[in-house]
């Protein structure tokens, strides 16, 4: 009887430890806002999406972010949004853009504070992977992570060609801004 008890308690203890540890390491984005702008000599184009989804695993400092391209709104006309999806992003073929990887700095995201970090991972847009190190500002307060980041995406890095006819209206350098809150899952 004593041997059986030991085994049972040991099993429960292991279950208890691992379950307890796993419960608090995932944070998911609740208000994921991502926007971009193209600042070309003859035209300024702005669009944004409130459907940025993301998860950060604070035990391993890994992250995974995704956004549906069809969720971007704004633009200068409905036709321009149609062209964005049909001709440039080919949204039916590549419905999402994603960024997955690991935070370089060794942080303890369970403690309150602010930090400037570098996120290293694969940025996938229009079906093309690009390894990037993107800087972000993380603020942790009361178990809520606020993430802000500004970075540049080159259309040429993701196989999105700009036709000569519109080269003064569409910039190759797209400025992206991410503003999201993550909460424990």
């Amino acid at each position, binding site marked *: *009887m004593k*041997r*059986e008890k030991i*085994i*049972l308690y*040991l*099993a*429960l203890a*292991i*279950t208890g*430890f*691992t*379950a307890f*540890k*796993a419960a608090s*390491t*995932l944070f*998911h984005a609740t208000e994921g806002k991502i926007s971009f702008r193209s600042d070309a000599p003859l035209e300024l184009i702005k669009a944004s999406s409130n*459907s940025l*989804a*993301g*998860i*950060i*695993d604070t035990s*391993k400092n*890994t*992250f*995974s*972010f*995704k956004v*549906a391209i*069809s969720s971007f*709104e*704004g*633009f*200068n*006309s*409905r*036709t321009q949004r*149609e*062209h964005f*999806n*049909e*001709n440039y992003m*080919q949204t*039916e*073929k590549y419905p*999402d853009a994603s960024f*997955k990887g690991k935070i370089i700095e060794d942080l303890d995201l369970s403690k309150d504070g602010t930090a400037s970090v570098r996120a290293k991972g694969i940025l996938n847009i229009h079906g093309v992977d690009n390894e990037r190190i993107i800087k972000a500002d993380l603020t942790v307060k009361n178990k809520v992570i606020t993430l802000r980041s500004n970075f540049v995406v080159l259309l040429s890095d993701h196989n999105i060609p700009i*036709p000569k*006819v*519109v080269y003064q*209206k569409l910039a190759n350098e797209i400025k992206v801004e991410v503003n999201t809150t993550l909460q424990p*899952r």
Partner: protein
Amino acid sequence: MRLIPLTLLAILLTSAALPQDTLDIDKILDEEMNQKKDKTELVEATFKTSRIIHGHSIENTAKGILDFKISHRFGTLNNGFYQLFGLDNATMRMGLDYGITNRLMIGWGRSTYQKQYDGFLKYRILRQANGVKAMPISLSFMAAMFFATDTSSLRNNYNIPTGVKMNTSDKLSYAYQLIIARKFSTDFSMQIMPTLVHSNVVPYSTDPNDLFSIGIGGRLKLTKRVSINAEYYYNIPGRKLEKMAGEELHNPLSFGFDIETGGHVFQLHFTNSRGMTERQFITETPGSWGKGDIHFGFNVSRVFQIGKRKS
């Protein structure tokens, strides 16, 4: 004895706990995103513009957008080299399409052929959609009115002698059309257009005034910005005009390319039709593909944002 089931229980518990270490956050994220997808997505851009070749496509001009259209039809290729294969004889239509709401559009135009003014309204009744509230097809209704002012052309076509005075109603005709369309894939769309053309005056007393036809049209995308289009209207026997000004009338058949760049859509095509509006091209096409009565033509469409921008 009790050791075996207890060990099994122990293994079960620990094995249930262990996989937590190999969390696949990508999979968890995908699951989360799929759960959020409870919306309905409208299918967009079934065709590149509001016309396939001559006839209407299921597409409407968006709210607040003004679409300036210029259409040219040259003479027939069998006119030979002297007429530069028809290039010397051109007819033209200038038109303006405007989106009143996202479902209702209005258009006006004037054709040099028969000096005809036209106006139409097109309303989107059903829109193809994927998702929760799925709809397999798009359905639109189009109503148009035509006012031809070139009386000598009308007299010639409708056998009205010069002595007889022509009333305003003699110059009017109407078209009503249902457009049923489906975007089958990113590259392929098709539509069917049952059409009624009512002409107040017809060439012979034996001709009906209500002319029925069924149109079929489609497009196949070749590249991101180029597509090949085709359009055919079958005039229903017994409900069509047979002859006009001594020429036998045929069903209109047209083939073309759509090229889209920025705010323009260029459509280049070959057709046996002379006119560019429903009464002219559906019910009064004297040309025959077999005889080489093929016209080269093009449409240019330029969109402008007039109304207030969204958000």
